[in-house]
């Protein structure tokens, strides 16, 4: 039986080597890059990062965006998933339409909402038709941070809710119908059934959806860039700018470390707060 002892290692070998080379090594390199200056260990890069005018703004913008977008996304996705579950006719078509944005990149989503929200765009056209405005209004400028924020929010919710829907529906399909049916026999309303049965059983799916979405949401960059250039600084956008405009790898790496630490912390928070007790795991 030596063959079957060696075989699994031959099978996972290439993937392991690959992940070490393109995940572990760059991770270590990023840390090294961020914590050195001219070959010496130093915090210069972090000092430069914190001292930058856009630093505070990019932190608060990114966090506000995550805090505003993720809860709304979860609610919207739950609504979509529960509605689709109730359908029998046309389910496939409706599902496909709802998950189309899954394949749309953040850059493309930003451009989509730019057609709508630009000053001569469709949103203003509709407002004009309703008689609410007289001429083009600029919603995405530096001087209107609130509407710019809402614009970015809309684009993010529009684009990235689909992945949550997919994960939730996959989770819903694994919940046996009998639980809900039994509760119905005992007279539980549909809201009670949703809250007391579906939601707790869906917790593992909700957890993985939240982790995945939050990590990706802290990486938000191209949506914002497409809608407003650098008018609305976010963390990864600053990393990109330091790398490309200022040609400074070190500070870009410092931003990367910051984003990573935040993502890991968020993941840990989700794992702690949404832990499923072992007796509830199916």
């Amino acid at each position, binding site marked *: 039986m030596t063959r079957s*002892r060696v*075989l*699994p*290692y031959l*099978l996972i070998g290439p*993937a*392991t080597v*690959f*992940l070490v080379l393109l*995940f572990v090594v*760059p*991770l270590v*390199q*990023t840390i090294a*890059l961020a914590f050195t200056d001219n070959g010496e260990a130093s915090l210069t890069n972090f000092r430069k990062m914190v001292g930058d005018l856009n630093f505070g703004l990019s932190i608060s913008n990114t966090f506000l965006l995550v805090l505003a977008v993720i809860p709304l996304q979860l609610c919207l996705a739950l609504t*979509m998933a529960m*509605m*689709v579950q*109730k*359908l029998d006719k046309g389910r*496939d078509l*409706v599902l496909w*339409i*709802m998950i*189309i944005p*899954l*394949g*749309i*990149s953040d*850059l*493309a989503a*930003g*451009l*989509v909402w*730019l*057609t709508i929200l630009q000053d*001569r765009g*469709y949103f203003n*056209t*509709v407002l*004009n038709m309703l008689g609410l405005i007289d001429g083009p209004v600029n919603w995405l400028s530096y001087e209107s941070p609130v509407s710019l924020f809402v614009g970015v929010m809309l684009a993010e919710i*529009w684009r990235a809710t689909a992945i949550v829907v*997919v994960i939730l529906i*996959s989770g819903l*399909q*694994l919940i046996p119908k009998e639980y809900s049916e039994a509760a119905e026999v005992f007279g539980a309303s549909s809201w009670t059934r949703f809250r007391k049965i579906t939601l707790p059983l869906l917790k593992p*799916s909700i957890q993985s959806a939240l982790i995945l979405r939050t990590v*990706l949401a*802290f*990486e938000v960059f191209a949506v914002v860039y*497409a809608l407003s250039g650098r008018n609305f600084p976010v963390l*990864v956008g600053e*990393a*990109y700018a330091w790398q*490309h405009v200022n040609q400074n*790898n070190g500070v870009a790496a410092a931003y*990367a470390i910051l*984003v*990573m630490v935040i*993502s890991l912390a968020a993941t840990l928070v989700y794992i702690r707060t949404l832990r499923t007790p072992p007796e509830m795991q199916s």
Partner: protein
Amino acid sequence: MSEATVSLRLRRVMLWSGIAVLCTWVLVPIYLIALGAFGGRSGVFRWPKNLLPWDSGLAAMQTFLAVEGVWAAAFNGAFVACLTMLFSLLLGAPAGYALARYRFAGQDAFRMLVILTRAFPLAILALPLTVTFIRTGLYDTPVGVALVHTALALPFTALVSSSLFMGIPRELEEAAWVFGCTGFQAFRRIVLPLALPGLAAAAIFAFVISWNEVFAASVLTVRNKTLTAYLLTVLAESPLHFRFAGGFLLILPSIIFIFAVRKYLFAMWGIANR
């Protein structure tokens, strides 16, 4: 009509209006960027806008495609995405098979490594790779970008194929051994055909991940940009109708591919998350 039927019918109406609203929310923005893409320069500056496609034409899209670099970037993007598809399948499917069929020391460590990548913003790790890639000659090449994109897609393909193989009864393989097939023959003739549709779906999803990725692709290339990276670079200095045409071109393949894999997506996620 009894009261119960009325309330049942009312519920159906409410359900379908809710679904109509949500579908409109998804579809209308896509319709509008199509209008922007096919409306051309005159369409972009028109005020107020026409919400119906009367001023659209193919001319605007043709002008966009004639711009130098667009075709090359689109081709590059598709090439990188195909490479990503190939790499992530070649590396991920065997690993998935090992996870599904064997118990071995280090199994949990490997699974952990794969899952851990999900908690990291992987694309950002492309930053130090610029130096490595310049040294090894991978900088500014499709293969280099595809390698980074494979790191993004590989965890997904490995976990998905592991759950696919788990869904195929081991007895089928064992029966083939009894009839004299070697291990590899049994895999190729019995397991592979059964897993193929799911593997194809995972591969297509890897394509979409690569086609859409923008950060690593723009950091690691100068002249051989993918379409997404190309659009990001020229974004600031290009006119609006050009941006809209580009955005539409980015969306088009994704819609088709999501349509192709829609059946498998749910099964893939359902098990891949356990």
